[in-house]
């Protein structure tokens, strides 16, 4: 168990889902920010599992506006934005 957990402190990340991914969440609208408490060894994969969002539906994962892969280790205060395949122009 980590030090943070022992002290009862959790990290928090701010999550937004878009373009249809909201259907996997209860009572959340697209683009609506919500906080998620995460443990300090979590990566994006753990977060998606925790939220029950199927990984294959998530095409773009931006953390603080930058592309990250599933093994990205979350940090306190991260802004996580999740998208299915989108495009236009």
């Amino acid at each position: 168990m980590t030090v943070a957990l022992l002290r009862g402190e959790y990290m928090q990340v701010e999550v937004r889902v878009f373009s249809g991914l909201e259907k996997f969440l209860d009572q959340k609208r697209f683009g609506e920010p919500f906080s998620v408490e995460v443990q300090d060894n979590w990566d994006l994969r753990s977060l998606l599992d925790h939220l029950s969002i199927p990984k294959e539906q998530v095409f773009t994962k931006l953390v603080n506006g930058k592309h990250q892969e599933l093994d990205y280790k979350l940090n306190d205060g991260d802004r996580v934005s999740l998208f299915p395949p989108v495009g236009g122009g």
Partner: protein
Amino acid sequence: MPKILRVNMTTKEVKFEDVPEKYAALGGRGLTSQMVLDDVPPTCEPLGEFNKLVIAPGLLSGTNAPSSGRLSVGGKSPLTGGIKESNAGGISSQKLGSMGIKAIVIEGKPSEKGSYMLKLSEEGAELVAADDLAGKGTYDVTKICRERFNDKVAVITIGPAGEMLMPSAGLTNNDTEGNSSRYAGRGGLGAVMGSKGLKAIVIDCNKTFDAPVQDSDAFKVAAKKFTKILLDHPVCGQGLPAYGTNVLMNIINEAGALPVRNFSKGRFDKANDVGGEKLAEVAKERGGKATHACHPGCVMRCSNVYPMPDGKVCAPIEYETAWCFGPNLEISDLDVVAKLNYICNDVGLDTIEAGCTLGVLAEAGVIAFGDGEAAIKALEEVEKGTPLGRIIGGGSAVAGKAFGITRVPAVKGQGIPAYDPRSCKGNGVTYATTPMGADHTAGYAVTANILKVGGHVDPNKSDGQVELSRNLQVATAAVDATGLCLFVAFAVLDNPEGVPTIVEMINAQYGTELTPDDVIALGQQILKVEREFNAKAGFTKADDRLPEFFTTEVLEPHKTKFDIKDEELDEVFNF
């Protein structure tokens, strides 16, 4: 035999000509740019008798190749002073392709005042007086023509902005339902049409998929394969149909590349209120459509139909338009965005240029950021032709000069669209260097920078951006020659079968023996032609630069400046 329709507005002579050998294998942008270089003196007055308006369907337009009904319109731009190809959806291109018309060339200039309409059908073509249409908005013109002839006609028309020769006036044509909203918007070609006294072109022909095809069996196979390539791609097959182009609003915002408040910030806390998801929700609620094809046979159907509170519909609201009237002005009301979009469509202005211009006016304090009513009132001045209206119709650079504003987002006089070049640097390279003036479609590096299509190049770093933009500019020029919608590029960039299948379709249609390498050569050739015109018109390296403030002001949230060196920009066209 394919024909070129030449319309002389000085003599009112209309004639069909054989297609010179030189132009036989060209179409769309490939043809318009070549004809402009060959026939328009580069130093001519864009609104004078020597400029020409060239309207050409793409090589595949009028066949059942999916999403192949894009129209190219070319000429010398009164906005940039350089060559212009402006590309539109709508139903005109397929009709022209089906009639075997390779291009319509509008030339000369009448010495007397008056408005004309070119009426084109399978029986022939004639110029008729159209003074009854003068001064009318494009929605009215299209409605009147559909009533006068029949509701299947395609109507290419300009609004009052084009008639008043405003440098950012576009020309439009309609979709199947008669919405006159499929614009060749950029670069002021509507003013060129207006300068020739031509108010409308009516194409009365019921054919859509009747372009001659030499080997129709081989064509069918290739077209079917290409359809599958599009539908199998996650963006083309699922993303675009679900929410349209405005689905980009949120991802560009999250990526921190959304130009906000006249390019002073990279994120807008209310972007979601004007994004594609919200648009789809409201459109459906009001009985509109979140998915719509701008022409028959498009399988990606990125368009939408947005019913407005006043009972009219705006179809479509594209991402760039939602951006320029939304976050760019710090406006977060989709109904205001729709209204501004509708006004532009009706009066005949390019939406992107109008939005950039309003951003400059807000910077100058003429209107306030966030004040939707003020933006609407200002845009309504255009139709009245008041001094403010004419400044708005003059575009962002004109507005900057009129009000002493130097933070003007424009290259070669054309407004920069919806991706900040400091945090989408590949697009910055494209804005700076494309012969068109700032144009996102000319080399859409958003793909690899932000959408992770066709590889990934970090949008906030300068590495790899020049090469990315170069490759995309070459590919885009070629796609624009085929009549395929540029959005096929998402699939083509990711699927090695993409380009060969396009080549198979062209070979089956024309009996040619092109290879994928020829496609690249074609794209390069088109860019060379366009750059030759611009060089002769007086453009130099100094014109291939972004406005200074992008290199000195830091953009949040990524704290970026545009830092790609001038020498690197000069390497874009090193082929």
